[in-house]
């Protein structure tokens, strides 16, 4: 196995809670938290959870939200109310959030489409003593007193792993190019930050440029096609900030008559099935997973919170990296997204 699992920053408090409630989670159908602060009104019956979700956005989000829905099932003793935003519109999310508060659900899960503008809604939930757990997306300004915890993979960490791999793979340095997501998006900045924390220290790495390809395969192909020409094919490495762009870069490299993985190495972040396939085929050289499947962890957190336990305000979901075709082949059959 070439894959390595890194579990980091687990708070001791949370580890204890998880341990305690791991048993409850195993016991399946029984309601683990019959009598808690938020659910006094009707202690009987399933626990209601309001999920203010992002809705259709892409493969990653689809996998993530499906995973949450598969976790909080009726069999597990939950009544999950799934409320995806209409067209990524924040107003529809706030409306859903407010009606969850009014209904008096036991827990609210929130994946905000936009970071800002949540203070009033979160305060209402606080007054109604409904715990709010942020799923993946954070809020701005980040005020941990307004929510219980935020559960997400850490972009900086994931990108640092990419940087580390690049640093190891090119001991003598390389000329590289970065394919970024849309300018100004938080994810892009975080992924740059993690990558630069390693590569920035290496003076033998020469950044020939960075350009946005808006997460798109097609745009990435077009960008790399021109970048290669502008640099007389003298590029050894491309850091693509998501899988789709990495796959576009590979095609541009092939069109230019070069061999991906040999002449130019491409690394990506996310770990979708398509990328794993390309890694298995030797076209991509490195894929860092940004793990969407943290329903189990989320379940534990919810149970801890409902039992009155305390959790860390920031919980980082462990992610995996894949650095060889073998690792990819091993992971492929289980890829859900």
């Amino acid at each position: 196995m070439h894959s390595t699992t890194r579990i980091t920053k687990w708070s001791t408090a949370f580890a204890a809670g998880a341990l305690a409630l791991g048993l409850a989670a195993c016991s399946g159908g029984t309601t683990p938290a019959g009598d808690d602060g938020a659910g006094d009104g009707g202690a009987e019956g399933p626990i209601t959870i309001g999920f203010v979700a992002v809705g259709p956005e892409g493969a990653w989000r689809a996998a993530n939200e499906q995973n949450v829905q598969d976790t909080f099932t009726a069999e597990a003793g939950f009544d999950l109310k799934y409320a995806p935003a209409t067209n990524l519109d924040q107003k529809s999310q706030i409306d859903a959030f407010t009606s969850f508060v009014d209904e008096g659900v036991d827990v609210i899960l929130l994946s905000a489409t936009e970071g800002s503008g949540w203070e009033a809604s979160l305060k209402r939930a606080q007054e109604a003593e409904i715990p709010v757990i942020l799923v993946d997306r954070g809020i701005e300004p980040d005020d941990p007193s307004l929510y219980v915890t935020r559960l997400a993979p850490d972009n900086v960490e994931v990108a640092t792993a990419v940087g580390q791999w690049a640093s190891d793979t090119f001991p003598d340095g390389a000329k590289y190019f970065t394919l970024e997501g849309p300018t100004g998006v938080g994810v892009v900045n975080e992924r740059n930050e993690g990558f630069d924390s390693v590569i920035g220290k290496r003076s033998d790495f020469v950044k020939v440029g960075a350009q946005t390809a808006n997460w798109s395969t097609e745009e990435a192909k077009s960008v790399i096609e021109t970048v290669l020409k502008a640099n007389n094919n003298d590029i050894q490495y491309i850091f693509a900030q998501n899988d789709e762009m990495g796959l576009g870069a590979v095609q541009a490299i092939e069109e230019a008559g070069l061999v991906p993985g040999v002449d130019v190495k491409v690394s990506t972040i996310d770990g979708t099935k398509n990328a794993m396939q390309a890694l298995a085929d030797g076209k991509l050289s490195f894929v860092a997973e940004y793990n969407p499947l943290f329903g189990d962890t989320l379940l534990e957190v919810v149970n801890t919170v409902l039992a009155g336990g305390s959790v860390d305000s920031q919980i980082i979901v462990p992610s995996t990296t894949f650095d060889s075709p073998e690792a990819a082949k091993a992971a492929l059959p289980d890829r859900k997204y």
Partner: protein
Amino acid sequence: MNRVKGLVKKPPFWGFVAILLLLAINLAKDPRYLAITVSPVTGNLVGNVIDILRVVAPILLIAFGMCLVIATGGIDLSVGSVMAVSGAVAMQYLHDHGAPDSVGDALAAIGLALGVALLVGLVNAVLVAVVGLQPFITTLVMMLAGRGLAKVVTQGQNTNAVNDPMRWIANGYVLGIPVVFLLALVLIVVVAVLIRRSALGLLIESLGVDPKAARLAGVDRRALLFSAYLLSALLAGIAGLFATGSVMTVDVSQTGYQAELDAILAVVVGGTSLAGGRFSLGGAVVGAFLIATLDKTIVFLGVPASATPAFKAVVIVVLCLLQSQRVRGWIGQAGARMRAARKAVA
């Protein structure tokens, strides 16, 4: 001299100048920018110009459709989404049924994709021409609905497929020239001939300038609107096949994203008023080439990603200013004043 003056007043002229200027900037960065070589590996022509030809193909198609719709006094905001729908249908079909080297499957996928694109166009046309909704609202709704449809088709996935004939259409070469460009060229020539050699151009213009007067003059508004919206959707569908075929992947949230803006920009840069009426297909061609060249130049020069939108905006604004009669008047006056001042000093 007079002819030059007349030329300067024609809006596409400045778009043309801008293209030459961008090429000159690229040449200044790399003297071999315009060089076209034969790739030793693939045997195809390779060069930045060839890349521009490939990039311009989908823009040309949607700009042409947009130009006609705008000329009728409408607008088609759904072209980008139609690209996504068409690409999604083709990729999903090939993903599910296609044999990797079957020409028949490729043709079936294309036929199916264009059929769905035409369906979206038909909804636009019915809502605008029969129901009488505003084009802006109608096509805005179809822009949202279209992308939603694309997501339904692929179940939210960015579906990829393997089909060599399809890939060849989007990436292949004939006589060293990209197939997409040749196809786009043939299509726009056919459309241009159809429009300008028949009376369609005149009828569309009269409809765009004054629908009431046109109706009383016997212009068949409904038929013209149907033709314009259907043609726009068909061309956008083909553009969608080009875009997705080039990477054999449909990106349901990114394919054709904001393509409608590129198309509108190309049309306006080409000197067609958004108010409808008089239109210039040649201008739209110049506009499309400008946008393709601009996109490629940004990458070639390595303009920082964060500065890209600003760079694009500056080029477009300057261009629009140069096209404005009033601004040209000011520049002329300032020039005259400076000349006079110089004369006075001498």
